[in-house]
């Protein structure tokens, strides 16, 4: 009971202080539009919405969450308010879960606009809604956990930002969004399969066109495994590095 009060209030505080601030909300709305525009320019014609849909959704989530979480955590560590959380009688697992939940929800929120726009305006056909929602949730979780992993190594806020981009930009090209993995140089292909986002994107593709590269079961298994690995390895490093 006590732990759930703490959990809920940490989440609520992060929502109020970070995620529900007007600049972040507008980011969640403007950013997906920017991606759509980019797609449009890239194809130079009226684009095929089913083709770019998963890309826009995935990018919106990835760019909404990763740096958001790593920046807020690094900021709190820097201003030392994070100490309050470490000093509270809350299990570390719960504390970190509370911190990431806000970012995960923000990631899901970021996906809403592109989904609505694609479906309502561009009349995109979604083949499997359950898988779309599952994919969005899993991608939000995995992008947030990447942010958590980054915040373990960052000491300054600008570092968190830089590391986030360092991870994200190569990911865009490696995860099969714009260039099919099979079209990548053979030497680089294994790298793609090491990225959790690759599998998340594949789930999205499956849910929209049914035309995905890997088996959906494999995708789900990989993403969930990645989630656990990232969560527990972050936790391990947090315990090791933040309580010295």
């Amino acid at each position, binding site marked *: 009971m006590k732990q759930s009060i703490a959990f809920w209030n940490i989440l609520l505080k992060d929502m109020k202080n970070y995620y529900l601030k007007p600049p972040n909300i507008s980011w969640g709305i403007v950013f997906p539009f920017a991606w759509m525009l980019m797609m449009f320019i890239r194809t130079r014609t009226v684009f095929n919405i089913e083709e770019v849909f998963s890309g826009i959704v995935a990018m919106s989530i990835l760019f909404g969450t990763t740096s958001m979480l790593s920046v807020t955590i690094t900021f709190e560590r820097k*201003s030392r308010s994070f100490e309050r959380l470490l000093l509270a009688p809350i299990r570390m697992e719960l504390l970190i879960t509370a911190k990431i939940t806000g970012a995960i929800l923000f990631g899901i929120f970021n996906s809403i606009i592109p989904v609505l726009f694609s479906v309502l305006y561009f009349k995109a056909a979604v083949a499997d809604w359950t898988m779309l929602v599952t994919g969005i949730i899993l991608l939000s979780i995995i992008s947030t956990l990447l942010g958590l992993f980054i915040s373990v190594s960052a000491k300054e806020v600008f570092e968190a930002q830089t590391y986030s981009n360092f991870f994200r930009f190569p990911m865009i090209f490696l995860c099969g969004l714009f260039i099919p993995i099979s079209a990548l140089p053979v030497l680089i292909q294994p790298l793609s399969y090491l990225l959790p986002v690759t599998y998340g994107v594949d789930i999205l593709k499956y849910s929209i066109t049914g035309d995905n590269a890997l088996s959906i079961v494999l995708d789900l298994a990989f993403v969930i495994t990645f989630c656990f690995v990232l969560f527990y390895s972050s936790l391990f490093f947090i315990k090791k590095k933040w309580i010295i």
Partner: protein
Amino acid sequence: MKEKIIEARNLTKKYDDFTAVNDISFQVEKGEIFGLLGPNGAGKTTTINMLTGMAKISAGKIYYDGIDLTKNMKKAQEIIGVVADESNLYDEMSGYDNLCFCGSLYGLSKTERENKAKDLLNIFRLNEAGNAKFKAYSKGMKRKLTIAAALIHNPQILFLDEPTPGIDVASARQIRDLIKTLNEKNTTVFLTTHYIEEAERLCDRVAFLNKGKIIMIDTVNNLINAAKDENLIEVVLKEKISEKVQFALKLNEEFPYVNCSFKNDDTLNIISSKQIDISPIVNHLSSQNKFIIEARLHRPSLEDAFVKWTGIEIDLMKKEKEKK
């Protein structure tokens, strides 16, 4: 022997090769104000961090209420409140919201934490600033709110890493009074400080810490007494004595177990290695029609004791702090 609420046994903290805290042992009694006094880098913050679960322990054990919690500091965190050496509340949140949030971290219900937050704002005279953002607070107000935040869950023990760093005299005094009052209401206080007067004024017992080692640990009175080599009583007379040397000589003949001399024309110093019974001397003086206006025991201060036991120059310590 009073009940001990904290016991540290052979605590050691190493940062790689550097030993910040070196095999220290001490006990904190329930209901007391215990002070850790030492210069920069002595290991005060490191000790607090170990006791509060903010630093890993390299060796040794920590007991709370007799229970070994070395490996289970989360358990200890339920009954302690911690004020770090710097303010660490949320800048963007109001004082009131900060307090309520801190309360929620300890599982207080909404009404519990709201009531307690209002109480604390009252006690710390921050009512008017309650709705202002923390970042707009003055240094003294920030310190007060940080202490209030550590009290939101009614902890049994309050840890204070430097109660009044860089705070003006009036605010510092107010904070010390609050700590005293809190202690009278049964909260055990563990504080660190480099202000010797602060330790002397506030603490029941003090440990001198230097280079990670505890040099002395005792009640303030015992530390002071142990530091004084002799007893000195100053007797002030209303009228000046013209023939001081002879007068003193006579006194020394009369009272061979003390050593009398004149500090100046009207002040007589009576020195002995033992405790001095001054009544016969006072009687003697009054029989000679000397009007005594004051007789006082010269008390060495905790500062004298600190210098004697640690060999640290106080002025140097103060200067170092100012540099910081």
